[in-house]
């Protein structure tokens, strides 16, 4: 799977939630290769300020249309630059980077929090027609436009919000035991805040279900060349989140 860098035309860059946008790029070469869990490394501006690219998970790839999508939250200068672009612009984009999720599951459970739901959206599409359940968490109802996006892709959608404005009040970890009781899952995929993924991995281990996690770290190169993003693997090994991951088997990188 060769990686590449392309100047990708923006098909659309639309608001889909509060401070959350979906960016669709025309990049047929990347779309042809991309698998769920991989990411793009995007130059958000031609100037040197901001200087570095921004890593964004691929939330969809449409091989027919030649497009790839990503869903991002505007949190700082880089994502603000990105949010200002329109369909008249193009962005310089490296991809598809990193390793994707293992796709062999017949009975998958997806557990996602916040923007971690973006790669799971692509994953859910790829795991069809197997029956998929997803457990998703967010702060409040407003953030849960995600539920609409997973409708049609999943057989069951479990929702938690911190403030109880949608689904159960609490966090995904509160609900996870019950979800596991009611389904015989053969693989748990999780992406979201580190603390959530660690909790999910622990529960998965207890239930003896294989688990994949998708890590994040600050990245400069995105391709294994700078060692900005390494973390400790088991047995004293070192793992680069960008090129050994971002998807890992939980036991590779978590206690």
């Amino acid at each position, binding site marked *: 799977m060769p990686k590449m*860098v392309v100047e990708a035309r923006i098909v659309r860059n639309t608001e889909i939630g509060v401070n959350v946008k979906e960016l669709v790029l025309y990049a047929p070469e990347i779309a042809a290769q991309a698998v769920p869990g991989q990411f793009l490394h995007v130059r958000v501006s031609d100037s040197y300020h901001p200087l570095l690219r921004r890593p964004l998970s691929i939330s969809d790839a449409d091989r027919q249309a030649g497009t790839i999508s990503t869903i991002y939250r505007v949190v700082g200068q880089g994502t603000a630059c990105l949010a200002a672009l329109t369909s008249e612009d193009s962005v310089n984009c490296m991809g598809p980077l990193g390793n994707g999720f293992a796709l062999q599951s017949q009975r998958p459970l997806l557990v996602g929090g916040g923007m971690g739901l973006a790669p799971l959206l692509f994953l859910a599409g790829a795991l069809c027609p197997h029956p998929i359940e997803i457990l998703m968490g967010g702060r409040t109802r407003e953030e849960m436009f995600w539920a609409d996006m997973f409708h049609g892709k999943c057989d069951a959608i479990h929702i938690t919000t911190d403030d109880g404005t949608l689904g159960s009040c609490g966090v995904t970890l509160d609900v996870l035991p019950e979800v596991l009781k009611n389904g015989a899952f053969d693989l748990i995929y999780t992406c979201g805040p580190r603390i959530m993924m660690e909790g999910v991995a622990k529960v998965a281990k207890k239930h003896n279900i294989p688990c994949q996690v998708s890590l994040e770290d*600050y990245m*400069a190169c995105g391709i*294994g060349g*700078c*060692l*900005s993003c*390494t973390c400790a693997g088991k047995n004293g090994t070192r793992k680069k989140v960008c090129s050994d991951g971002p998807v890992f088997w939980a036991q590779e990188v978590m206690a």
Partner: protein
Amino acid sequence: MSNEENTMLGITIAGIKMKTPVMTASGTFGFGLEYKDFVDLNKIGAVVVKGTTLLPRHGNQGRRIAETPAGMLNSIGLENPGVNEFLSGILPHLNAYDVPIIVNISGNTVEEYGELAALLNASGVDGLELNISCPNVKEGGIAFGTNCDSASAVVRQVKKNTDLPVIVKLSPNVTDIVAMAQSVEDAGADAISLINTLLGMSIDIHKWRPVLGNVVGGLSGPAVKPIAVRMVWQVAQSVKVPVIGMGGIVTAEDAVEFMLAGATAVAVGTANFINPCAAQTVAEGIESYIRQRGLSHVRELVGKVNI
């Protein structure tokens, strides 16, 4: 690349023949192989690999990079698999390409530098670059690079242990860069590269903590270019050995600026993160520039700034 092109950009530094004067800066280009989808490694001047140490190192804890205006801080802390793994596990793959390999080395003591040099005096290695200036390791590192005597001691020890060309990489965190350059030249350096990163710091004003796990880190990128150009200009006038210029080079125009200042070759570092093809696009751009100026060889630029 046609032969004619080879002739326009081809240079020899300290006996190392390069097809272009554009090398990759240590630590920003992995071991080269990571970039092979983006750059034709056969078309790079030389691959300078990640700083290598005697034993494997895990590097620094916590966050390792921070963005700054037109620059970045890094505190990788010399994470690397150690010289033995480099020689047996990585070098053979690199040697599949027709490109000079320069190994950037760091030691905690003068003796360690000597040992590293001896181990790397191996076929498949084309040169050594002594990193006497890494600001990211506590046990010495930068101390060698800011003191003329210890820098000289490192160079002499290395020269005793190798037949390879020895490039000494200078730290910009000094009062007198010329004195440093002259010391390492006197001690036997075959070439001098500069600049390494400038020691910097960022503070997270929400958490009231340093942004980097290691508190301080090295500043690189376009922000530092004027400092690097000045130092290259000062050093190139004061030593006889060739100078390799780096620090904020992103475009061919940047590279030309360093060459006019006196650099025989240049290296792209942080630019690889912005444009993974940088080493190639910069070389191509230099060639266009030379053609447009009606010159016949890149060496006609070196040191030609008119004061």
